[in-house]
């Protein structure tokens, strides 16, 4: 009798626990690989494609899948590589020169006198930072420009140039305190 009771008890327990597990599997389902989002959060979102992937998210996916190295993002710079290395628990490696080199943050500027209004740059811009219409002058919303340089190549009249964003009073940062050493004879 006690034997049957034990079996029944175990069976009931199994059913209950199974139901709990099944419910949890549905309730706490993880659709996307959370690692991809974490990597994507570190990437600078310039969407420039210098890494060889069509955007930051595809590169993040490739890193998560182990198909790409962590040092292929020039806009992120060595700092970005370091953060990726920290996240993924791998060793830091310097930026891969094949993907380009780190440049100071720039924005694209259209020479509005030369622009013929061909809309090619508008189509190329990954973040819709260019306004304009066919046969009308185009211009770049400086605030939205990520400096990806993707609009340079399609321009048939070469009227887009990259201009570095200088330091302003608002963006200025306090420097790391440096202690001056006195030279004694």
């Amino acid at each position, binding site marked *: 009798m006690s034997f049957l009771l034990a079996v029944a008890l175990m069976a009931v327990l199994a059913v209950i626990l199974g139901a709990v597990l099944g419910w949890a599997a549905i309730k706490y389902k993880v659709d996307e690989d959370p690692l991809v989002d974490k990597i994507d959060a570190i990437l600078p979102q310039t969407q420039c494609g210098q890494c060889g992937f069509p955007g930051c998210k595809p590169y993040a996916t490739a890193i998560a899948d182990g198909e790409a190295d962590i040092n292929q993002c020039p806009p992120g710079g060595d700092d970005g590589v370091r953060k990726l290395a920290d996240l993924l628990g791998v060793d830091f490696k310097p930026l891969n020169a094949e993907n380009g080199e780190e440049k100071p943050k720039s924005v694209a500027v259209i020479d509005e006198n030369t622009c013929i209004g061909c809309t090619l740059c508008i189509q190329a811009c990954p973040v819709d930072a260019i306004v304009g219409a066919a*046969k009308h002058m185009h211009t770049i919303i400086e605030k939205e420009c*990520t400096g990806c340089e993707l609009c340079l*190549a399609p321009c048939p*009249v*070469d009227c887009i140039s990259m201009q570095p964003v200088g330091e302003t*009073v608002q963006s200025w940062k306090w420097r790391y305190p440096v202690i001056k050493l006195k030279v004694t004879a």
Partner: protein
Amino acid sequence: MNAPAMKASLPANTQPVYRFHGGVHPPEMKHLSNAAPIVPAPLPARLVVPLQQSIGNRAKCRVAVGDLVKKGQLLAAADGTVSVAVHAPTSGTVVAIDEQVVAHPSGLAELCVTIETDGFDVWGDRTPLDWRAALANGDGKTIRDYLRDMGVVGLGGAVFPSHLKLGGRDGLETLVINGAECEPFITCDDRLMRERAGEIVAGIAIVAQLLVARQVLVGIEDNKPEAVAAMREALAASDIGNAHVVVVPTLYPSGGAKQLIKLLTNKEVPSGVRSTDLGVQCFNVATVYTIFRALEHAEPVISRIVTLTGNVARAGNVEALIGTPIADLLDFAGNQSDSEGYIYGGPMMGFELPDTQVGLTKAGNCVIARSAAHFPTKAPEMPCIRCGECATACPQELQPMDLYWFSRSKNFGKAQEWNLFDCIECGACAYVCPSSIQLVDYYRFAKSEIWAAESAKKAADLARQRHEFKQFREEREQEEKAARLAARAAPKPEAAAAAVDPDKAAKIKAAMERAAAAKAGAAPANETAAPAVSVDDDKAAKIRAAMEAAAAKKAARAAAEAGGETPATKPAAALDEEKAAKIRAAMEAAKARKAATDGGVTAPAADATEPVAKAAIDPEKAAKIRAAMEAAKAKKEGRALAPSVSDNTPVGEVAGSLANEEVQVDTPSKPALDPEKAAKIRAAMEAAKAKKEGRAPAPAVPTDTPAGAASAALASEVGQVDTQAKPAIDPDKAAKIRAAMEAAKARKAAKEGGEA
């Protein structure tokens, strides 16, 4: 010092005082400048007025170079909520609006308005506000907007827009008026309270009414007995109920808002909570003074009281116009030749001026000429010995040594966990540090790094969002297009189409087959182009669908037109009418657009009356564009930048635009030509589409072929249709099209050859 004697002379507080944690007592040095009354500074030859005079957005400039301005005239208007206006401090001429070095630790330039003073100091029109009526009506917003437009900011040093602090909710427990002035050397608030207590109290009355404050507490340190006496007298004379001057012990930084609130109300403002949430609001005495001046006398903030002290012959307080070059003020105070530098603000929280030519700002309460006598060379920084003195001194009850370690090692996350952002940068920790570590420099460094990282993160998030939206939009557009085409293709009466236009259908089919064959040939040739080819299939399907839809439409219309007639001519005519109407509508739209952009009446007139002239203009325009493109191409080839792409583009653009223009010009005069024209447009569009298609995926060659072939087929078909319908009208035009098509084909072939 005779501080104890002074304290003895003060009447006892009627309100209790509660101590805050920590604090230091540096040498006060207030005796240097607190004896002499406030004097007006001489009118300088020119004023440099920065447009960023408050926390938040820079004011928007409202004057131009060469403008004559009167005293108090608006120079720049507030831009948004967190921003205040800037006014001309005196009358004169605007001689420059440019970037100049400003009083900021960075030494960087900011947009400034430079005014050459005319010496007359004439006021412009002043529009007073009937604030008493507004207050009686409970219309606080009018008063707040007025104060914003009068440029009223917190003059204690933070220059926070005052109108934002006056947003009354349902009454305030305590209004704290800050007259503590705890930093050494500075005496501007002391002198102001001594000399203008009545106006300060009038300002307090206004603020208390605006905020519906139940209690007003004025906190003054016990090293300013004259100010205490003056304020007590003025308060007693006023009709503000439940207002008290509370004498607080001299202890740096009792003038910090949170410290003074704790001293007077025993309320500690927790991290991340504003004092308003606790029913307390704090205003500096100079701020309430300017609020009174603005409301009662319609005087914008165009001057402030500055303490000039340190290594100067005549230390004291001056009322100086905003924008006065600091060098002028120092000259007035008798600057000594052995000054080593100039501190803007107090010795604890101020910074070294990058240049003495900078204009005075609303934040500038003190300028100290630095000399070895008052500021001996600091001892060299030694390692932290973890003595904990800084933690004892910290008025915010932080752990400065930990913050130092984290900031120094750039462990910013940890520094934030240790509440770095609750640090008020008072410098008490650095003052007591036995290793003379400049702790605040590390905190400032860490804070600005964290802010920069946060703004970069925000920018990245925005870029991600915009990129994802663009992808979503492109996808949606594609889907919509496919859906539209499918919807048009679905109800096609196939039998009718076959009956009406069998030769056309056959031709289309043939073209499609040719295209398919071309694609099949291209696919094995370039295996890496697999995705491109799949895109192609899709495209071809779409084109097919579009063509079928067109055929169906034509057929339907023909059926509706008349049963018995010859199917070859009639549908064409029917089509013509509709198309002509459509084109006419498009033309009118284009005309309207042109009129809007040109703003001229001549262009549309010419458009309407003499199409020939327009035709003459257009080729010229096209030629110009072509020239520009060729120049660019040449440049680009020099740089070896994606030549295949740039090669493709211009021709397509020009051809497209030419085709469009021709249609516009020709239609009204020769409506009979329409089907041919339509075909041309279609061909041009196909070509453009093909080109675009070729650009999207990397390899241009295989993708170009099918669409190109289709369009070529169309073109040849056009010729045939034409000859059937109106063989006599324009054979040379058809020939031209054919020639153009062949030229395009030849070019493509050449490119293919080149790439292979």
